[in-house]
């Protein structure tokens, strides 16, 4: 799936990225490792602070749930013991969203993929690359990268995030499935998503290479 990304867009953060994926536009910033507040400090690893802001209005419990899902994912990807007693603060601001507020699939997907670039831009140590894809099933038909309208008409929708090692999708890091579906549909969807995630990762690499080429002006 095609996406557009721009890295280092914010001057005052350690890393940032702006991503347009599908009809969702999101900007993420990473500040870290920085000094945490005393209550956030962990003696042997970095603590994470994740803040999600919606495109419209103030953040609600909906964003809290999104933050929780994103934190669960990122805390296993960031090599946290490298930054003991430090804080990594990640802020995700949605700019344009394309789904009913009762759905969060497209937003979660965009947030995960945007954080990937922002974390790399901030030079935070990661265990592996990761790529997330979203799909939905409508009347037994699998739709990849659905629009907000397709999501609301679907029978079930799924967000899958894989970790990528040596260009191959290795294991499932996160799976959020809602709706009504059967086991066979799910496993079929997972195997379809593998190639999609790998395809996404080749694009990720392309953008990262471009960024590094521009970073070193003496090339």
């Amino acid at each position, binding site marked *: 799936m095609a996406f557009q990304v721009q890295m280092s867009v914010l001057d005052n953060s350690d890393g940032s990225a702006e991503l347009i994926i599908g009809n969702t536009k999101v900007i993420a910033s990473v500040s870290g490792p920085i000094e945490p507040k005393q209550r956030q400090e962990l003696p042997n690893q970095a603590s994470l602070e994740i803040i999600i802001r919606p495109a419209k209005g103030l953040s609600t419990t909906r964003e809290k749930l999104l933050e929780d899902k994103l934190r669960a994912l990122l805390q296993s990807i960031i090599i946290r013991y490298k930054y003991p007693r430090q804080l990594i603060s990640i802020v995700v601001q949605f700019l344009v969203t394309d789904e009913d507020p009762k759905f969060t699939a497209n937003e979660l997907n965009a947030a995960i993929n945007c954080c990937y670039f922002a974390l790399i831009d901030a030079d935070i140590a990661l265990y592996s690359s990761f790529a997330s894809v979203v799909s939905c099933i409508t009347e037994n038909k699998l739709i990849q990268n659905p629009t907000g309208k397709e999501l609301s008409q679907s029978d079930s929708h799924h967000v899958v995030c894989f970790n990528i090692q040596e260009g191959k999708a290795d294991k499932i890091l996160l799976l959020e499935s*809602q709706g009504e579906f059967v086991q066979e549909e799910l496993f079929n969807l997972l195997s379809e998503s593998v190639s999609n995630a790998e395809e996404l990762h080749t694009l990720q690499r392309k953008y990262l290479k471009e960024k590094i080429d521009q970073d070193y002006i003496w090339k």
Partner: protein
Amino acid sequence: MSSADLKQVSFPPDVLARIAPDVSLERHLSLGIRPNLRNFTEFNSIDIKSNNQQLQENYNNIFASSIVKSGPTTIINTLTLGVVENYGQDKDKYGTVYPVVEILRGRMGGAPTDEEMILGQDLYETIYHSKLIPNESLQVKPIGLGIKEEDGETIYYPDLQEADYIPQSEHEKSYSFVILSSIKVYSKHTSTNSLFDLCYLSCVDALQKLKLPRLYIMDSIQTKVSVKSKKSTTRGLISTNKAELNIDTANKQHYYSIELNIKEGSISSNYGIVKSPDNNDESILLTDLQGQEEESAILSRMSIITNKTGSINRISLINGGDGDISLELLRDAIEISKRRSKEGVM
């Protein structure tokens, strides 16, 4: 010759569970048992009491209730109703409940914690996406007309007392019910994932017992409303002709059951995955996480909702810790969930 005498420090099990939950968990697992003394794939027994008569009799704004007990954890879920006007065309085919989760820890009040907010939002989204409540069943039936008579108040409904019902004022607005769920959690001992399972169970159970009331407006719509005058600071009462919708709680025989789309055996189960202490390549599947050690040492988790027909309503999987969730383990977990849906939780 003197040498420093270093004594081995040992901790009682409950202290070790707090300061080194991973060590405590590993030691238990190598003995083949979990810290909460259950088997690896054993679920905690659950006790459900629905529609507690006392609750409904004492508070006539409670329309269904469910009490779920699992070990020392007790959940009291009460459903109340709200009414909203239908504006325009409602595109949504399904409704949901609006839950407020409170985990009581013996402290007074305060803002809701993240855990409470996440649980509430998760329930709200899951019930919506599982398509349990068709919007049609939330539609308010034709509104009655309350008439003051000598021997008290009688309410006439257009569909029940057709002969007696004289339409005086056309009440054209249409209304829908909103289901509000207040969930109180006492003595929380389970993990957040298990708590979601229990809350979901209590919501599904209470919804199935839910009976909706009829609504009516009074014939003489003379309501006194307090207004503040610009000229003086005292409040005065004036009459308005604003009709007030009332819930007919006096005639419980008119209550009707809500039509739902809940498949039998809709049960949420949760799993944790840890590396086997004996063999590092092997992962162990634990069901229904409970206790300090499992809460903080297990980061790879799954939460699955299945029903008796074999379909799945929700999977939330996070592969976070050192235990790897393979497709086989996911398949195993789905199998266990399906079996549980068939056999029930009791």
